[in-house]
């Protein structure tokens, strides 16, 4: 395997690794549950994409085989990440998990919890 390919693969791995790290760091650092939800759902998608592209290039160069598993992993990740984020947010609403004080529109959480329409507009409820 030539040095150029190695460099490209390393670049992808580094980029992917840093985004996954950033996602985990966000999980640690952000102030409340709802904001924490954002870091791993988003930063991780690109991080995984970087790692998987790196892996694809590596196997293509090293073993002359086209590995397509990685594409499938990306696909599954894209399908599952938003669903799990949604379920987590829903559960948090249900358990009345506290959001930080300055969260705008906190009044909406009660309506959202009961799956009702927001109180400010009854006219659209039909």
């Amino acid at each position: 395997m030539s040095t150029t390919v190695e460099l490209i693969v390393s670049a992808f791995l580094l980029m992917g690794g840093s985004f996954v790290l950033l996602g985990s760091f966000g999980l640690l650092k952000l102030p409340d549950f709802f904001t924490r939800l954002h870091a791993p759902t988003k930063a991780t998608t690109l991080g995984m994409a970087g790692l998987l592209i790196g892996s694809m290039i590596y196997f293509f160069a090293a073993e002359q085989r086209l590995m397509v598993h990685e594409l499938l992993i990306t696909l599954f990740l894209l399908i599952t990440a938003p669903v799990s984020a949604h379920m987590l947010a829903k559960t948090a609403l249900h358990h009345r998990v506290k959001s930080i004080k300055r969260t705008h529109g906190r009044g909406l959480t009660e309506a959202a919890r009961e799956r009702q329409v927001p109180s400010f507009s009854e006219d659209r409820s039909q």
Partner: protein
Amino acid sequence: MKLQKRNRWIPMPAQSFILFIVWLLLNNSVAPGQILLGAFLAWVIPLLVAPMQASQPRVLRHGLAVRYTLMVMYDILVANFEVAMRVLGPNRRLNPAFVAVPLDLEGSLPITLLASTISLTPGTVSAEVSENQRWLYVHALHLEDETALIEQIKSRYEAPLKEIFGC
């Protein structure tokens, strides 16, 4: 809104096709045996699960669907950088918010797609849908202008989805 018509022997042709392709990808091979097995599974599994599936609106505009997918891919890329920036910045500059977005879309599948798109794109996670499917509750990591956010969601994501499903 057009609902899917069912063929008795191949009830879900699109899903069958995807299943077949995914089977070959998972096995990473196009050997005749795998093709045969994949085709068999792609035929039998939809036959078994079709009665459980609720009828969903059909994709009417395929070209637009492809364009929408590419646009979402690009937005995911942007979202990643944006969220990374926000994570690195100080917490006190964050301005998190709950926003209720009025929905014009109808049907579970289009709303699910919209909610998933919102979760994957800049600074927003969909949290809940009202029971009558008219409102989507969204949590934003950093809100600058509520009307602008709602407007962006409606024009950038909801409008094309509406056209794709014709509802």
